[in-house]
């Protein structure tokens, strides 16, 4: 491979020679997603223990919904991490599909809870009483989004807006996986507005972070 090669342009050589420190190859997307997934699993466990101590253990439906959402969120984080490696991304269509699938999973969980143990708490009261749920999900989701953004900053996302929106969606779905063990309300309107709303807001926040990231790459 070495005799008729084009010579390295001096300008490029100089630029590189001044910044040629050894680098540690990044962990695979799978391993990076696993760290965040474990972090979130710990949050779910803590939520579950707190709720049990409070004397009202979550129903089986709530646990199933939580586990399903955790899986969906984990897949979304994995997708976002893959987007951070050039040539390893899922592609626009698949990434959008994964994002849609994650949000649909949260919606499906909401429907499962509403049909199995749903209360009929409709109207203005349901809407007004739920702001704390969005705050709770934000409190879990925003650090998750920050952690994912930090991981994306350390990689090289070529479709930064998509990767970051996926990360935001994942943060929302994972936060809901933990929070709906704490929130005892199962009426559909409350879940749609405050829980799904929080996920949509986190996805939008992720997208905006991606706009910033795109300028860096």
């Amino acid at each position, binding site marked *: *491979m*070495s005799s008729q*090669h*084009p010579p*390295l*342009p001096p*300008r*490029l*050589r100089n*630029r*590189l*020679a001044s*910044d*040629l*420190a*050894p*680098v*540690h*190859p*990044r962990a*695979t997307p799978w391993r990076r997603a696993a760290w965040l997934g474990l972090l979130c699993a710990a949050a779910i466990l803590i939520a579950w223990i707190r709720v049990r101590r409070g004397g009202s253990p979550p129903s089986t439906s709530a646990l199933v919904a939580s586990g399903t959402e955790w899986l969906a969120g984990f897949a979304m984080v994995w997708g976002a991490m893959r987007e*951070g*490696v*050039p*040539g*390893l*991304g*899922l*592609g*626009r*269509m*698949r990434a959008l599909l994964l994002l849609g699938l994650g949000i649909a999973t949260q919606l499906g969980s909401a429907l499962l809870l509403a049909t199995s143990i749903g209360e009929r708490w409709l109207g203005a009261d349901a809407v007004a009483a739920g702001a704390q749920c969005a705050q709770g999900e934000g409190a879990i989701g925003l650090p998750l989004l920050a952690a994912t953004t930090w991981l994306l900053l*350390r*990689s*090289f996302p*070529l*479709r930064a807006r998509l990767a970051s929106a996926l990360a935001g969606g994942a943060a929302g779905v994972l936060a809901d996986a933990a929070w709906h063990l704490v929130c005892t309300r199962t009426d559909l309107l409350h879940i749609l507005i405050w829980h799904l709303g929080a996920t949509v807001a986190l996805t939008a926040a992720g997208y905006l972070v991606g706009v910033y990231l795109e300028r860096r*790459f």
Partner: protein
Amino acid sequence: MTADEELDHWMRSYQEGHLHAFEQLYAALAPPLSRFLRRLAPPGIEPDDLVQTTFLQLHRARATYLTGQPVRPWAYAIARHVALMARRGRARTAGREASIDEQALEIAAPESGMLGALDRIALERALGMLSDPGREALWLHHIAGLSFREVAAVQGIGESAAKVRAHRALSSLRAHYATGGPS
């Protein structure tokens, strides 16, 4: 050692901070990347500048290369991103989408028997008539020698979509020649 294994070896050495390894990578990747970028470069931007920018971006992204993964799709994906960014920048300043540049019609050295059998200028013109994604897929697979899986990774699409793009582009090219297209 196969070419891919050799590239992987140089890439690992480059990650450890060896300039010599980068020189080897540059030697192996610069010519095909240059030909690839010549087809994607917007008017008014020198493909060689894009090659330099691509290698600077490769340098920034070097930690994201995963050992054992093929190097070429990784490098082509970054090169494609550089070209797309240049196009966007150009379109913003020009206020319109970039059209085919005369420079894109420059004769590239043939890399396979396929090119050698055809009139290269006419082929370049015919390639210029294809859609960008189709031309890219065709070029990456049939000329740069990437597998469809690798083409899909570069373009950020599924493997079957990459096959369809390349197939459609090839069919368009055949139809173009069948109707006496190149004159």
